[in-house]
């Protein structure tokens, strides 16, 4: 029994003999309910005003936002009034939780509703509920499936990026001069805005008439270097550009792992006469496995959001060969104003991501357990 209590105890255990009078508790409750009441009144006024039932109200919903913030503060303050010391502890995570709920969960619920409506901004009808029609449309939309297929290619490219990053991290960790210089230089591509990279690399260096990369390719013997006309090469180019910006992130994470390797084990292996390759295969790689897998998972998370450079450089072309899901949905919004359908696509994408990441993380955990 006492053991269970031990577990339930906070890591930072505070004895708080504070007595809270019923009056304070009541005050706390009144505070919450009165601010909630205020918010409800403002909300109702605004709804009625928008439905043109009453002729007074506000220009927009902002007063509701202010009263919502007031309500949130009242809840936070009342926690302290009602629960004393325990309430103060809750205050640590309360702002972040409230913030995420109000800016993610509410819009998401609304988005879920939109995704089952037929809402085209260019038509005058406004939105109307159309059940699963969007879903059926998605099932027969070759471009959406094509963009999902592209995402698989893009994610597989992570493995190549990982190999390059691992090699560079190993080299940075070896006995070299000027490590500080190399580390700073290798970091720089990550700092560049994808928008700037789109122009600097995608639009100017890969320019087919006088871009330096095109000139270089001509010098190598490729007579008509075009980087965005054939589907395969265009996709490969986008992969390279994305890899260029994100390899530094992987280098940093892997290098941190390499520097934390136990020195004694490496020394012992060296004394035993292991050569570099066997040392890498039998010692460094197995020990680095957790760090490697974390790096891969994080890189894949970033890869799933890939959009900026595609939107700017190719806009998904040629023929959707470089489309990521995000860039495809953006075109659905921007070019066809098909808001309801686009939102459904994004929610389907979110569900696929959640399934994929759950499987991936479970797989990674199982692999780690088997390895150790």
């Amino acid at each position, binding site marked *: 029994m006492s053991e269970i209590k031990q577990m339930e105890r906070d*890591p*930072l*255990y505070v004895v708080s003999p504070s007595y809270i009078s019923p009056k304070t508790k009541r005050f706390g409750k009144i505070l919450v309910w009165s601010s909630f009441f205020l918010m409800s009144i403002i909300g109702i006024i605004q709804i009625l005003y928008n439905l043109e039932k009453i002729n007074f109200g506000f*220009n927009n*919903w902002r007063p509701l936002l202010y009263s919502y913030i007031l309500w949130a503060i009242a809840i936070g303050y009342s926690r302290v009034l009602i629960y004393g010391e325990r309430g103060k*502890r*809750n205050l*640590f*995570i309360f702002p*972040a939780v409230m913030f*995420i709920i109000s*800016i*993610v969960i*509410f*819009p*998401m619920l*609304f988005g879920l509703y*939109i995704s089952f409506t037929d809402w085209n901004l260019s038509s005058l009808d406004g939105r109307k509920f159309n059940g699963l029609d969007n879903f059926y449309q998605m099932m027969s939309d070759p471009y959406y499936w094509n963009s999902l297929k592209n995402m698989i290619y893009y994610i597989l490219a992570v493995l190549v990026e990982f190999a390059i990053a691992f090699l*560079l991290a190993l080299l*940075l960790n070896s006995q*070299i001069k000027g490590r500080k210089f*190399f*580390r700073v*230089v*290798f*970091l*720089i*591509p990550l*700092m*560049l*805005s*994808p*928008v*700037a*990279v*789109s*122009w*600097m690399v995608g*639009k*100017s*260096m890969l320019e087919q008439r*006088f871009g*330096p990369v095109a*000139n270089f390719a001509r010098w190598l013997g490729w007579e008509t270097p075009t980087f965005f006309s054939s589907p395969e090469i265009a996709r490969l180019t986008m992969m390279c550009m994305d890899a260029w910006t994100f390899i530094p992130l992987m280098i*940093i*994470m892997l*290098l*941190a*792992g390499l520097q934390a390797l136990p020195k004694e084990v490496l020394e012992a292996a060296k004394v035993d006469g292991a050569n570099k390759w066997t040392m890498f295969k039998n010692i460094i790689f197995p020990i680095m496995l957790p760090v490697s897998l*974390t790096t891969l998972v*994080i890189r894949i998370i970033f890869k799933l959001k890939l*959009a900026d450079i595609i939107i*700017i450089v190719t806009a998904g072309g040629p023929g959707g060969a470089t489309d990521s*899901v*995000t860039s495809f949905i953006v075109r659905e919004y921007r070019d066809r104003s098909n808001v309801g359908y686009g*939102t459904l696509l*994004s929610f389907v*994408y979110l569900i696929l*991501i*959640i399934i994929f990441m759950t499987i991936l993380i479970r797989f990674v955990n199982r692999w780690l357990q088997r390895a150790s």
Partner: protein
Amino acid sequence: MVAKGFVMKKEFFEKILIYGILLLWTFICLFPIYWTATTSFKTAASVTQGLLIPWLDFEPAWKGWKNLGLSPDTIFTESNPREEFLARFFNTAFISSTASALAVIMGSFAAYGLSRFNYKFGFMRNPDISFFFLSQLILPPVVLALPVLVLYRELDLLDTHIGMILIYTLTVLPIVIWIMRDQFNAVPIELEEAALVDGATVWGGFFKIVFPIVLPGLASAFILCLILCWNEYFLAALITSTDAKTMPVMVASQISSQSIKWWNMAAISLALCFPLIVAAIFLERYIVKGMAAGAIKG
């Protein structure tokens, strides 16, 4: 003797190979920046010939910077592009620093709470709450895009600084929590316990004892957030139009307009990147620390 010579030769080649690969990658990292920097000084003729080296191949001119109003002879004169550019620059700086500060404050509170106390909200316990925070990382911005757009329109937050700050805070908050949780776990609890015995409150202990210890970690989280917000394009393109427009949106809109001159684009792209390149050089230690934080402990 022969064997020793062979070993020396092998080591020598190995060194050459290592430095060769490192220098090749250095070249790959720096060339685009070099190219952009030189292009901003080129005239139309030098651009179309694809010339590479200033003074040797072509005579540098302040082409791109003149149009931006930042060249030596235009810097003290009236210039509309410069006004525009500076307005965007300050928008970006203000939005990203405020959002990062907000995220660091809220995120470190949450991370501290999670590392020190056991919470229970309904079925949610500490691991669930942590997961709730970190799961925001995998949320692609495109899912939030339209719902937030509609919400912002109703709240009259479109194209306002505060609206941008809120959404940016959201995107970087999970990263702060992720970094800071490890930082707080590394601080021994006994330190605060001693302070509490001496009569400090929980919040007092946090600010007086723990806060100074994790300050470097906090700084790296802040810098990381700053970088991410500075470069963010997708949401900014959606939410802003004139007042709160950020630099990436401005640059992107100029890329898509066909008539824009190469030297202009080069100058403006470089101006967008320049602050962060400087940051990379001077703050490398903090940036690396922030990114490496999650890798080791997972």
